[in-house]
């Protein structure tokens, strides 16, 4: 998207004002904006269908998310959602989909709470150790999924998700049995010792805002991701792999090692989010508290929306956090279930995924307009085996490769479908 915008700017270099106007036009008509607007229109239709006034409902989403009461909640919600969005964006940048965020998240939380409860060190050191333990636990679990892909040929998409379920069961067991608070009716661990916690930002009146300093760590993670992505060779390799895995392979990128590293980074960030969450209020681990809200899935959608670009992911994560919190406000105001916001989030991605097919040259809209000539044009179905971005190689060359000549390395080249999004460059910015 940035590339296309730059291209148009070069064609019409008529002063900075005109260039700026083109940028604005590019942003307004970008696929992301169009998808969001389309989803909001669909949401308005659903709202009208349930008998609510769409404008009132959307207004209550805004006040719920950004009102004086809501903004703290929205920022609090940003910690897990933006954190996981960043975590999942890291492999997505290279076209790898990590669906195991939930497992990495809870393992991080469990590791942090275990360290917090049993560490012999004073508060501050324990907090740092707990954060590191959380990162390590999540990272190792994610790395296991990477090994399953590179060594055993299980697609990352499937291996990461399948590893997630036993991790969640294990953590649930640990919280409900060995670490259970004695005499508690709620499945939760003991409260962390005094001093073992991430402090909250204080509001003007001195009361806690519910936003822990964990948000600083998330911002820090975003900054690191931005710098690595834009300024280092490693970030370049990752983006190149996302644009064309085969090409990157020929250029000397070690796919297996890259997968392992990206997954470790992704998992450790997810684990960090888990650690931050248990080190904040209520300073303990409650069974299901990390997975029930579906942070992983919201985060994944945010990363997809932003094409995994660092700044875009933060923006999309913030947008989805506001939508989630605003949904609760909407439910109070208009009695429309807040699940509607989850529907809207998914619909945005649906629209975004099909945008190319509708709007691009030779797409559905164009063929429709051309009438009978359009029917004579090469049918689009031939392309469907192939990703828009070309990350997945076309059918013919692959089928033409003799089976014996397809060692593991070739499989890895083609083994994972990248979303079309990363191919668009820095989509969300």
């Amino acid at each position, binding site marked *: 998207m940035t590339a296309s915008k730059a291209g148009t700017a070069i064609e019409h270099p008529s002063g900075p004002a005109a260039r700026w106007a083109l940028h604005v036009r590019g942003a307004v008509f970008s696929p992301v904006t169009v998808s969001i607007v389309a989803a909001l229109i669909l949401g308005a239709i659903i709202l009208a269908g349930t008998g609510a006034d769409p404008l009132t409902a959307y207004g209550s989403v805004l006040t719920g998310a950004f009102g004086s009461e809501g903004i703290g909640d929205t920022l609090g919600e940003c910690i897990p959602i933006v954190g996981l969005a960043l975590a999942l964006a890291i492999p997505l940048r290279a076209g790898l989909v990590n669906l195991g965020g939930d497992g990495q998240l809870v393992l991080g939380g469990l590791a942090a709470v275990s360290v917090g409860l049993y560490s012999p060190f004073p508060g501050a050191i324990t907090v740092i150790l707990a954060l590191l333990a959380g990162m390590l636990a999540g990272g190792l679990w994610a790395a296991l999924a990477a090994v399953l892909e590179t060594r055993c040929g*299980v697609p990352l998409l499937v291996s990461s998700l399948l590893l997630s379920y036993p991790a969640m069961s294990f953590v649930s067991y640990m919280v409900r049995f060995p670490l259970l608070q004695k005499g508690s009716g709620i499945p939760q661990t003991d409260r962390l010792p005094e001093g073992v916690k991430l402090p909250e930002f204080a509001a003007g009146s001195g009361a806690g805002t519910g936003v822990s300093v964990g948000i600083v760590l998330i911002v820090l993670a975003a900054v690191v991701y931005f710098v690595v992505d834009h300024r280092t060779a490693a970030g370049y390799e990752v983006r190149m792999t996302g644009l064309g895995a085969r090409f990157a392979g020929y250029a000397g990128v070690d796919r297996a090692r890259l997968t392992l590293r990206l997954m470790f980074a992704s998992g450790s960030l997810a684990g960090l989010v888990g650690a931050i969450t248990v080190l904040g209020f209520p300073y303990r681990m409650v069974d299901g508290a990390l997975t029930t809200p579906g942070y992983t899935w919201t985060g994944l959608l945010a990363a997809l929306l932003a094409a995994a670009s660092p700044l875009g992911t933060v923006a999309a994560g913030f947008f989805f956090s506001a939508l989630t919190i605003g949904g609760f406000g909407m439910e109070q105001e208009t009695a429309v279930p807040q699940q509607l916001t989850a*529907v809207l989030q998914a619909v945005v991605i649906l629209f975004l995924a099909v945008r190319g097919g509708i709007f691009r040259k030779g797409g559905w809209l164009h063929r429709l307009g051309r009438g009978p000539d359009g029917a004579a044009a090469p049918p689009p179905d031939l392309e469907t085996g192939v990703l828009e971005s070309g990350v997945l190689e076309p059918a013919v060359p692959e089928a033409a490769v003799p089976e014996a000549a397809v060692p593991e390395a070739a499989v890895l080249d083609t083994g994972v*479908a990248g979303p079309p999004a990363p191919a668009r460059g820095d989509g969300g910015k």
Partner: protein
Amino acid sequence: MSFDAELIFSALRALTPILFAALGGALCERAGVFNVSLEGTMLIGCFAAVTGSWFGGSVWVGVISAVLAAMVFSLLLAIGAVTLGADAVVLCIALNLLAVGLTGFLLRTVFGKQGTFGDPDLKGLQPVDIPGLESVPFLGRALSGHSPLVYLSWVAVAVIAVLLSRHPWGVRLRGVGEAPEAAQSLGVSVARYRYAAILTSGALCGLAGAQLALGNVTLFSENMTAGRGWIAVVAVMLGRALPIGVLLAGILFGLVEAVGFRLQGEGMPQQAADAAPYVMTLVALFLATRSRARRGAAPPGRLTGRIPRPRRFARTTSEPQS
């Protein structure tokens, strides 16, 4: 724990939703569409089954509405992936989440419930006793007395197996998956066959949802598919998208689920039983790729949109070459 007829019975019951969904996944795989939206489509089927049965007053209205709703839902994938040429994986991720949000939303708006809807008046699938078989000592208790959809799933395996290997329709479908350009140049519409495969897989996922929500239990609860659609995806890989292979893989998962459930009754923590099918899945995938790697063949599951490749089929099936 004893290995008895009841265990087989519950394994077969647990197998059914996975088997239906995996058959749908296998069809898509053969047609060259990597369909990982089985989970969400099944969940839509669950909800539509309960809604249809509740408002229609008959369990069959429930089953039919499950099939139709799941087909409409999978139509989104067909339009997006086939007509509009979007990335199937991204579409499927969004569709899975759409299903979770949509069923949660509708549960609140239609039934006014949060979490779970169940009612004693909700009609579920009645067990069918097979005359003659039910009096056979061991087999009778294991094979008779299932819901009609369980038997339908076995029929579906046979029908799809014959269709894919013997019928021109199935041969063309495989051709579309293995060499779309060749199929197109021979006058076979790639788009039409892919639409058919995706919609059929939607219908099968609808049946899976109906069996889950009206057969195994009689209620709807949020996210009740609980990863079964993903196990079905793995079953497609392990079974190499062959109906019989998918059946065998499904039986493995059904057994693990049944054994886990049984052990849970004998004091094993629930969490261990929950985790067992996934651990089993991973172990099975691991072993399958290991043994195949030793023979020098490619791993079974590859996210290429076309998992099984032509040559491998020539080896593993006895079907006539098309």
